[in-house]
């Protein structure tokens, strides 16, 4: 339909930079003061030619310059379309949406644990709360998909890297280094994002030892709480209940979920 109207919470954001950061991984930098008010862990719900919008977390949030980043892997038609967007083009976005990370308590040790495309939103958290200087553990399948390592290092943070195939950093998953970190840090705070099996392992490692906030993915419809598509099972007061990733999440306390 011609002449799309925009409303509060719906943003017409211009792409000011496009970068292929790794094979099949693109980061778009958008100019949008409205989006740049986001809390780390929140997401953008992006119109693509498909029937549903595509949720992507913010990799960077820069309120001063009014810019945000979206760093995504090309996995299907929607992300392929997005990856083809050029500088100067505009995206129709709902956002910032969802419930982001609660700020870390600066008086307690803090660690970020990210896997694959779960790394970028953790970078936005690290940048936002850089004074709390988290330890950073990031992992990926293989070397070239270890995302944003340099960006973390430029914040002056120590980064431990794992790859499944041992092609970079330590061979194995992020869970090994996390276990070590938990042993060395009492009363710690863990922020984590990555594939659901990884988050389940993080939740299990942290249980009773550290407070873990995890950012989840789920297939979404509306993205704003209306359709009840995006639920995950959580511990209700008396029994299991479903919570919405788009509204109560994407960031949950690990212990409120049923893994």
């Amino acid at each position: 339909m011609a002449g799309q109207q925009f409303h509060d919470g719906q943003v017409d954001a211009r792409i000011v930079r496009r970068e292929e950061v790794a094979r099949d991984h693109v980061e778009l930098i958008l100019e949008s003061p409205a989006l740049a008010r986001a809390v780390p862990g929140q997401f953008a719900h992006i119109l693509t030619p498909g029937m549903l919008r595509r949720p992507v977390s913010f990799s960077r949030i820069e309120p001063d310059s009014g810019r945000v980043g979206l760093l995504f892997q090309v996995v299907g038609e929607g992300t392929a379309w997005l990856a083809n967007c050029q500088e100067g083009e505009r995206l129709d976005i709902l956002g910032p949406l969802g419930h982001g990370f609660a700020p870390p308590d600066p008086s307690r040790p803090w660690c970020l644990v990210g896997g694959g495309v779960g790394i970028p939103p953790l970078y936005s958290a690290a940048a936002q709360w850089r004074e709390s200087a988290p330890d950073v553990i990031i992992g990926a399948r293989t070397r070239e998909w270890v995302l944003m390592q340099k960006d973390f290092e430029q914040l002056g943070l120590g980064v431990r890297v794992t790859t499944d195939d041992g092609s970079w950093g330590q061979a194995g998953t992020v869970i090994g280094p996390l276990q070590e970190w938990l042993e060395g840090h009492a009363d710690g705070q863990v922020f984590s994002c990555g594939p659901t099996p990884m988050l389940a392992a993080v939740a299990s490692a942290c249980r009773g030892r550290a407070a873990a906030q995890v950012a989840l993915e789920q297939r979404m419809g509306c993205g704003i709480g209306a359709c009840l598509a995006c639920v995950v099972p959580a511990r209700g007061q008396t029994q299991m209940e479903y919570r919405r990733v788009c509204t109560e999440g994407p960031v949950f306390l690990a212990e409120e979920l049923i893994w």
Partner: protein
Amino acid sequence: MVMDLHVSLPRGLTLANPVIAASGTFGFGPEYSRYVDIGSLGAVSVKGVSPEPWLGNPPPRVWETPMGLLNSIGLQNPGMEVFVRDDLPFLREKGATVIVNIIGHTVDEYARVASRMQGEAGVAALEVNISCPNIKEGGMSFGHDPEQAYQVTRAVRQATDLPVMVKLSPNVTSPALIAQAVEQAGADMISAINTVVGLAIDVEHRRPALGGTTGGLSGPAIKPIALRVVYDVAQSVSIPIIGMGGIASAADVLEFLLAGASAVMVGTVTFQHPGRMQQIIAELPQVLSRGGFRGVSGAVGQALPAASRPQTRGGDL
């Protein structure tokens, strides 16, 4: 352009325009009110409400298909008391015309929701969902059998004075037969269609893609199916029809009006474009006037065989 968009329906139900938010795609009201003036819509049909809370189906609950969307929400809802307490006041305050979509596992449960809504300020009408394909017991079978559809409708009719519409399933050999049954049982209106049962395969995991195995197909893909049901039902009953299924533009609305719908509901497209319903309302006068019509009611049923055009169907013109 001065164009009469209002729609007069039975029992004094009047809509400012024929564009209604479809049940289940618009939550309980507050969610989209940031993007749309919900008071400016023809009406809002809320997510299905049952007497007690329903948990719904396991995720994933949505899956894209070519020009369509499969969902298996499974009618998750917090139950009628929470709805009346938490959501209805907001809807009332925003000036929304509220249609409460009601569901139950038994005839009695439907009747319980209906009588609970009776007399609640702000409830303009009830929509009896006997057709959700995501519930294996209860809901499914009611809409698949004329006798059971009759029973549910009758029980709701007896429980309330509110205008009652019954929502039909396209997943039956003859929707027209079900329509006749619910008309006889005292339904004031029919809404059609609910989603079409479908399935997708998650090839990677070698299993059905949705947590609920099958799901309901909505979106533009089903528009021709919806138009067929509306067109057939319009020739089989004399009560007004609220048409839906794949509507994404003002031109689509005109197709449904011509096929026999007195008003329409808009669902899936809202996920892409939260403001689309308002845009459709804004563009409808132009589309009607290009089609040679002076208002909504003049277009209703004009593509039906002459014998079934609205003169003989009463009420709309």
